[in-house]
């Protein structure tokens, strides 16, 4: 079975501290036997634990450049956030050329797929309005889709029901490659250069469609040094060649940072939220029907959007500043080269064929009667625990420990305060018993004297 998530733990580096358990938005991590354990069914691959771990014990299971080997023809898909990793004098054509030079046969901008999705979302808005599916929620960030499946399944119908820019671009790339070469589809390898582990999981477990067009996902951080090296020995002719290719416009490029997706939509009634904990707050607001004036929600799991992804290299704020420059350059390019800017092709939009399902990993028991019983018990135990939420037991807070106890995964004495209480009472019992024992076994003073005489 395909793995449900891509965040991995390096046991040797994990010291069993409480940083990750505290930060996980779905309470998917527990420290057991001194090591963090990730609950597969709860992890949404947001990468918060990767960012917060001071010991770098969390990593993402990603593909490496070795994954290119089995294919006769390979194509790299550049996420818009990739550009922002490189400062001046790098330009978009230069970054694309450098990416090609590290060993691909062709490169595509995912910004092109982003434009297609923007167009599709604009066209879908009236339908969403009439079928009361507002606000529409962007489905481009897989971690957001997964958190909705797990914590807000009532909002699944509000998701934009199309494949992400990555899939759309992969579809375009494969189509073009098949037309241009005489290769079979399986001889063409398409690799996404990704800012996050969630995108890899979206390939091993596709969202909305059973099939993916992407053959592998590489971390931006993995290819960063190679791209940097190629940028340093860039052939000017090649850059000119790339400047003459069809490039994505500013709408697509802008998707790399928070706010970029909403920018291209034909509605002013949008809201942009980033950071998974903030996203959860907004989802709560939507579910309570508190955002009645909003038609579109752009939600990104990472602060700053994809440029804040856990597998990026550049500091998020400096990446944001660079992103603005790339957008400005795209606008200038658009104004100067009308015919070499990509025109979104409507027929490549890939509507979802199967809506994402609710994930019931948080449900206490499939049988509601048992669930009610467990809930009652859980409340009692929570009440009984010290309420310090210290995390020393390995669960993020007292309520989570109570849940683990009810699920049979922990015991009350995992709480060090409860353990201390027990030790104290056992010690008291011991000394009481000792006293009793002495009283029965030691002869009385007078008797003793009597015995000696």
């Amino acid at each position, binding site marked *: 079975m395909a793995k449900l998530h891509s965040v991995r733990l390096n046991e040797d580096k994990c010291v069993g501290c409480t940083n990750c358990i505290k930060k996980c938005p779905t309470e998917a991590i527990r420290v057991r036997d001194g090591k963090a354990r990730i609950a597969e069914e709860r992890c949404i691959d947001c990468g918060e634990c990767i960012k917060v771990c001071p010991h770098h014990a969390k990593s993402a299971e990603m593909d490496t450049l070795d994954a290119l080997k089995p294919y006769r023809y390979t194509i790299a898909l550049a996420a818009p956030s990739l550009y922002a990793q490189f400062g001046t004098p790098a330009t978009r054509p230069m970054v694309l050329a450098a990416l090609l030079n590290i060993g691909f046969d062709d490169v595509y901008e995912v910004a092109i797929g982003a434009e297609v999705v923007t167009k599709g979302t604009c066209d879908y808005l009236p339908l969403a309005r009439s079928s009361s599916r507002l606000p529409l929620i962007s489905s481009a960030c897989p971690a957001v889709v997964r958190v909705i499946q797990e914590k807000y399944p*009532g909002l699944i119908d509000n998701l934009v029901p199309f494949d992400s820019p990555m899939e759309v671009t992969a579809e375009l790339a494969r189509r073009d490659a098949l037309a241009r070469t005489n290769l079979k589809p399986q001889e063409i390898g398409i690799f996404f250069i990704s800012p996050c582990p969630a995108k890899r999981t979206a390939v091993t477990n596709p969202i909305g469609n059973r099939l993916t067009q992407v053959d592998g996902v590489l971390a931006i951080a993995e290819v960063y040094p190679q791209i940097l090296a190629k940028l340093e020995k860039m052939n000017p002719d090649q850059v000119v060649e790339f400047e003459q290719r069809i490039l994505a416009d500013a709408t697509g490029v802008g998707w790399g940072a928070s706010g970029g997706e909403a920018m291209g939509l034909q509605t002013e009634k949008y809201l942009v939220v980033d950071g998974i904990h903030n996203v959860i707050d907004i989802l709560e607001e939507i579910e309570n029907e*508190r955002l009645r004036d909003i038609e579109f929600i752009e939600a990104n799991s990472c602060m700053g959007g994809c440029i804040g992804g856990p597998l990026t290299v550049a500091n998020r704020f400096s990446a944001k500043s660079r992103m603005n420059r790339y957008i400005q350059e795209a606008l200038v390019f658009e104004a100067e080269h009308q015919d070499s800017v990509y025109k979104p092709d409507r027929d490549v939009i890939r509507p979802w064929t199967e809506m994402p399902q609710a994930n019931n990993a948080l*449900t206490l028991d499939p049988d*509601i009667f048992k*669930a009610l019983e467990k809930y009652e018990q859980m409340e009692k135990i929570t009440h009984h625990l010290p309420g310090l939420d210290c995390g020393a037991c390995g669960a993020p807070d007292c309520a989570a420990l109570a849940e683990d106890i009810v699920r049979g995964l922990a015991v009350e004495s995992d709480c060090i305060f409860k353990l201390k209480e027990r030790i104290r009472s056992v010690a008291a019992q011991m000394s009481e018993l000792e006293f009793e024992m002495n009283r029965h076994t030691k002869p009385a003073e007078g008797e003793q004297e009597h015995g000696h005489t």
Partner: protein
Amino acid sequence: MIEPVKLEYKIRGSDFINAGEASSGTKKALNRLGVSPAAVKRAAIAMYEAEINAVIHADGGEAEVFIYSDHVIIRIIDQGPGIPDVSLAMQEGWSTAPDIAREMGFGAGMGLPNIKKHSDDMSIETEIGKGTTVTITVRFQV
């Protein structure tokens, strides 16, 4: 008959910062119990509206939630001014919310009608000068 799970919350008046804690806690509980997303959503919206009403109009109150295997009963009890004309208050757009609440986006006169819309049963007991109890029932299966 199995005993229902009972949840209790204090609702503090004019506390817009923490308003919604009771309904969000109830929602979490219903999710844990595996109640269908649609029913959770209805219960959460209905309860949220009633909770906000108590915050705006009644200087707070209490929430009592009884979760059974196939339905939930939510009771929002306040010792506020009472509702003089319930049928008027049930009309969409009718509101007596103070300006400050309206400025924050509350009190659009959608509260009671919205509770009715999202619940299977709703009853209001109210007495002028004594208070109001709104009882909401949401069934899990349609």
